[in-house]
């Protein structure tokens, strides 16, 4: 074992000396290789963390939301609708939700007006989201007026601002009492925007949705699983778009690495010929080149991954943020919580380190098994 280790150290000494002879070329390759790993790792780390964030936060969302559809569009829930749903076996609890959109011409942004289920603000008061507080320069006890869709001006007092920590889900929220909401939107009495259901047995959620469809053909049940899948697919799609844009860079690197790894220069061939002539075995030459491939690819992988981690979780992924996060006037400020997927890291490792380490071996093996004299002369 000791002898084997000593031999490997000598081989690595020789490999490093050989790499140093073509310093600029090898350093250039290492830099491009590291950059490629950095870009791929940044995109995968960022989108995985966003997917995880959405999945964890929305795991507490209602099990089923029931909308009513009219001519393919979302419509209000009329009185009597909830009683029909209440007769469906398996429905444990249901609550009508009141929420809607309001376009504010001052900030040129949409707000989500909502009536909270429990502990609503007093009449004439509102609780606002942190992004709205920033964009309108609001503070507790300030007054703010909104012109409703009927043209009337409604003035509210800001009773509170939702916590900064919740901004990812509450950036544009305006919470108000049911009385204020109905007056502001001219909502008919007894009507709701949609219904939030909870099901007694979580295994029965899909069955309840089927029964809902049968009892109320104009109802559209939206399951929590579907909500979670929607968010997973949004970030899958965005990750795909970024990777598609990066594919040109990946291909360019592939060509560079393949050219470097598979085509031996005359100088390298001469070197192999001399090594064989002075008594090196074919196995030694291959081991030397294997170490070369492994040292370059492993260094690039480690440096690229660590740089990507720091970029995504300590510098808020500033390079890819605009494409991956999306855009909005009232964009929430949030810090992503790191979640590193072991399988993703393993996949990245496999597709960046292994091909390069393997690609260097084939031409070396070909050169190493030929006669030293002919290799040196060619």
């Amino acid at each position: 074992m000791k002898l084997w280790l000593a031999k490997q150290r000598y081989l690595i000494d020789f490999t490093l000396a050989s790499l140093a002879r073509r310093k600029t070329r090898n350093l250039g390759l290492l830099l491009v290789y590291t950059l490629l790993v950095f870009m791929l790792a940044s995109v995968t780390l960022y989108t995985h963390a966003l997917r995880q964030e959405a999945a964890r936060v929305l795991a507490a969302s209602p099990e089923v939301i029931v909308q009513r559809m009219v001519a393919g569009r979302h419509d209000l829930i009329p009185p009597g609708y909830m009683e029909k749903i209440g007769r469906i076996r398996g429905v444990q609890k249901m609550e009508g939700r009141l929420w809607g959109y309001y376009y504010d011409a001052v900030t040129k942004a949409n707000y989500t007006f909502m009536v909270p289920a429990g502990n609503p603000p007093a009449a004439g008061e509102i609780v606002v989201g942190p992004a709205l507080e920033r964009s309108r320069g609001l503070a507790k006890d300030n007054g703010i007026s909104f012109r409703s869709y009927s043209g009337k001006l409604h003035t509210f007092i800001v009773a509170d601002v939702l916590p900064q920590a919740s901004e990812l889900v509450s950036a544009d929220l305006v919470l108000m009492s049911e009385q204020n909401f109905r007056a502001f939107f001219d909502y008919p009495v007894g009507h709701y925007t949609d219904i939030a259901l909870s099901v007694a047995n979580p295994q029965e959620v899909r069955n309840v949705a089927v029964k809902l469809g049968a009892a109320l053909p104009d109802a559209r049940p939206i399951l929590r699983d579907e909500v979670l899948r929607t968010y997973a697919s949004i970030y899958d799609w965005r990750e795909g778009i970024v990777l598609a844009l990066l594919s040109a860079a990946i291909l360019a690197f592939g060509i560079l690495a393949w050219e470097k790894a598979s085509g031996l220069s005359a100088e390298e061939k001469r070197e192999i010929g001399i090594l064989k002539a002075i008594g090196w075995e074919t196995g030694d030459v291959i081991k030397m080149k294997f170490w070369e491939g492994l040292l370059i690819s492993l260094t690039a992988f480690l440096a690229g991954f660590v740089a990507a981690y720091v970029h995504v979780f300590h510098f808020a992924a500033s390079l890819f943020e605009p494409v991956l996060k999306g855009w909005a006037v009232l964009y929430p400020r949030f810090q992503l919580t790191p979640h590193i997927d072991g399988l993703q890291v393993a996949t990245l490792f496999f597709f960046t380190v292994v091909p390069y380490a393997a690609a260097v071996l084939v031409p070396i093996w070909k050169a190493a098994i030929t006669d030293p004299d002919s290799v040196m002369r060619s």
Partner: protein
Amino acid sequence: MRPADRAFLLLAAGICAFALCFVDAARLRAVAGADEAERTRLVAQLRLTDLALFTEARYTRHPSQADLHSAFQDHPLALEHFPTGSLIAPPAGLAKVGAGDTAK
């Protein structure tokens, strides 16, 4: 120091930094635990269904609640005009339906 030892030292430092990423991730997760609990509490209390990421249109503010036609609300062949909308994936079944129609 021999070049091989220097290379091993460099690789060992790289592996340590790689492992530190996982340690740092666990630390940041622990720090963010209270904020996450706050978000989850608000989602449960207000029965929220979507993240407040894209507020420019109703189907981008609540992508999970929007009907399938909302992105083409102006007329059936209207092109999507919000930057976020163009980056949200079309429904999974739509591509299959389109492919089937072309095959016919």
